[in-house]
């Protein structure tokens, strides 16, 4: 197929009664990209993914996956995509291998091909030694690998991963992202949802979801630069908590937050930085360094949400 976009949504909307879970979102995911859907719980990430997988009807708008309509061609879509739901969809009373074999069969892989793919995944994921263990006894990290395996055995062109790294230790998380990138290099388009901002850096492009709407989208650097129209000042101090309390209510400070050990201040006026440092020193807080920085993704997100809520 010569469709340039793997996924394309136009004004996609889903309501549950009076609640608007997804509110007219529009985006396009080029083939082979890793896309991140970022946002807090309840932002509409899972609902969007479910609509794209053809398991939830949109209320309004439309969406295509690999050029197939999510309403009309839902079964054709299901054959070509992989989906890893938040609840993983594994049977605890089956073994690792049995879970994989089931999904290989459910996607209609011929027996020989199924066997090959199952073995390949067992090797690739480090689950080979645990192949005969029941899922009930499997640690969370391995379960996640298994769930991912169940979603990719049939070599889908698009992979939807809904909160795949929730509750997983940092080391497994890193390995997981490495693998996602390898799949992308092999040509798979990946859409990952997460509420962890630090994972955003792994994505080629991002969409920030909040209240069912996309409030920003683009590459990570792009989003940070776009947020740079307001000034972020990083203050190095050994008393960050005190600093935060001190600047609260200061007329020049629009917002303040911790960033690692430092404090990030968002200012109304870039020129105000020096007067604030003076103000802090007056309060007896030692300031070891001041620098204007590019806002972090988190800064941008918080800023956007606050701007939205002030406007509302």
């Amino acid at each position: 197929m010569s469709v340039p976009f793997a996924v394309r949504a136009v004004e996609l909307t889903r309501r549950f009664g009076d609640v608007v879970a997804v509110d007219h979102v529009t985006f396009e995911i080029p083939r082979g990209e890793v896309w991140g859907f970022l946002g807090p719980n309840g932002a509409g990430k899972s609902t969007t993914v479910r609509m794209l997988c053809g398991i939830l009807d949109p209320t309004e708008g439309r969406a295509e996956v690999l050029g197939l309509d999510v309403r009309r061609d839902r079964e054709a879509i299901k054959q070509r995509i992989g989906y890893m739901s938040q609840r993983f969809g594994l049977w605890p009373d089956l073994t690792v291998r049995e879970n994989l074999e089931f999904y290989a069969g459910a996607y209609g892989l011929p027996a020989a091909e199924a066997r090959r793919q199952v073995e390949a995944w067992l090797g690739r994921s480090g689950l080979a030694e645990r192949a005969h263990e029941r899922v009930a006894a499997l640690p969370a990290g391995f379960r996640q690998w298994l769930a991912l395996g169940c979603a990719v055995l049939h070599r889908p062109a698009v992979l939807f991963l809904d909160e795949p790294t929730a509750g997983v230790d940092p080391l497994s998380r890193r390995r997981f992202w490495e693998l996602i990138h390898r799949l992308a290099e092999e040509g798979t388009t990946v859409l990952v949802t997460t509420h962890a901002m630090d994972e955003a850096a792994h994505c080629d492009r991002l969409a920030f979801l909040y209240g069912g709407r996309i409030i920003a989208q683009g590459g990570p650097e792009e989003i940070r630069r776009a947020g740079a129209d307001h000034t972020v000042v990083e203050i190095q101090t050994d008393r960050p908590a005190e600093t935060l309390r001190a600047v609260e209510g200061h007329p020049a400070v629009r917002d303040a937050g911790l960033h690692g050990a430092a404090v990030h201040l968002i200012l109304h006026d870039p020129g105000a930085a020096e007067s604030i440092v003076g103000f802090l020193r007056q309060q007896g807080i030692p300031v070891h360094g001041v620098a204007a920085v590019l806002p972090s993704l988190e800064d941008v997100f918080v800023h956007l949400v606050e701007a939205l809520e002030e406007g509302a």
Partner: protein
Amino acid sequence: MSGRRLWSVVRKEVAQLRRDRRTLATMLTLPVVQLILYGYLNNEVLHQPTAVWDPVPSAESRALVAALENTRYFAVRYRVRNLRELERLLDSAHARVGVVVPPDYGQRVRSGRPATILVVVDASDATSARVVLQVAQGLGVRLSQDLQVRSLARRGQRPPPQPVEVRTRAWYNPDLRTQVFIVPGVLGAVMQFVTTFLTLGTIVRERELGTFEQLVATPLRPVELMLGKLLPLVGLAYLNLTFILLVAWGWFGVAAKGSLLLLYVLTFAFFFSSLGLGTLISTVSRTFVQAAQLAQLILLPSILLSGFLFPRESLPPALQYVGLAIPLTYYVTVVRGIFIKGVGLEVLWPQVLALLALGIVVFGAAIVRFQKKLD
């Protein structure tokens, strides 16, 4: 329909069934226990506790009481000395029947004068009271005849021939054994119970586990998923049937008069509709508890309206129609036909057609209701 996809569901279900020891144990023991318990259900009204007031005992009155006891319907437990005592025993339900023999009974019988006996029955349970009353009346007629024959014989005369004689034959169950009737009915009821119980969880358990969402995101078709889940259950249900047949034969000495092979074949039509019904329940339910409650709506009428305990003909017409929607109604007829009468398809085909039609309806409804979507 894809064989690969269907087979993957069958394999998964078999693996899960094999590991679910508790369900397996329940499925294999419960039917046997039920069969044994229900198998002793009896609609006979034998051994009714009886109180006798016989103020002036005589050889004749003793013969009368003995004749009562010989019918096996009356068990004389109390001898009372006045009417008050008799009343108290009936009021307190210690006795269900009271017999009052007049003081001059012996004298009257000896001199060939008519004597009257009073039989009082606790008719709270009208059905059994009716039986007891009939037995008492029949006994009176027989005693009178005996006395007449004897007095004629004493005078050297032969009794006149009876104007009308009714000869009775009990077909199919000549020994009038209740179990010959009850056990095949219970077999049907137990199979209804087993199949409903087995299918209740099929869909709704995936919903509760969270695997439903993942399942509907695969290319599996609803019919593949349902068939894949039901085929192993059909195997298990046949195993159950075999078990029950063995118990019916080994414990109750009830064996099929007709073809067992035919029973197995026709049972498939029953499985088709009863498993379909269970699947429909499982598909429309949100939780397992809800499914179990819905199942009660099927199982209770199955017991009351199918004719397995009470003759359907005695139900009001409206309830008879409700009974037509229940697979067990037809299956009980099939099982009894093969077991008791030894009949074949030439008699049972309407039941088989009904079961298949019912199966198509409920299965169709389950598949239509099963949406490969969330809501």
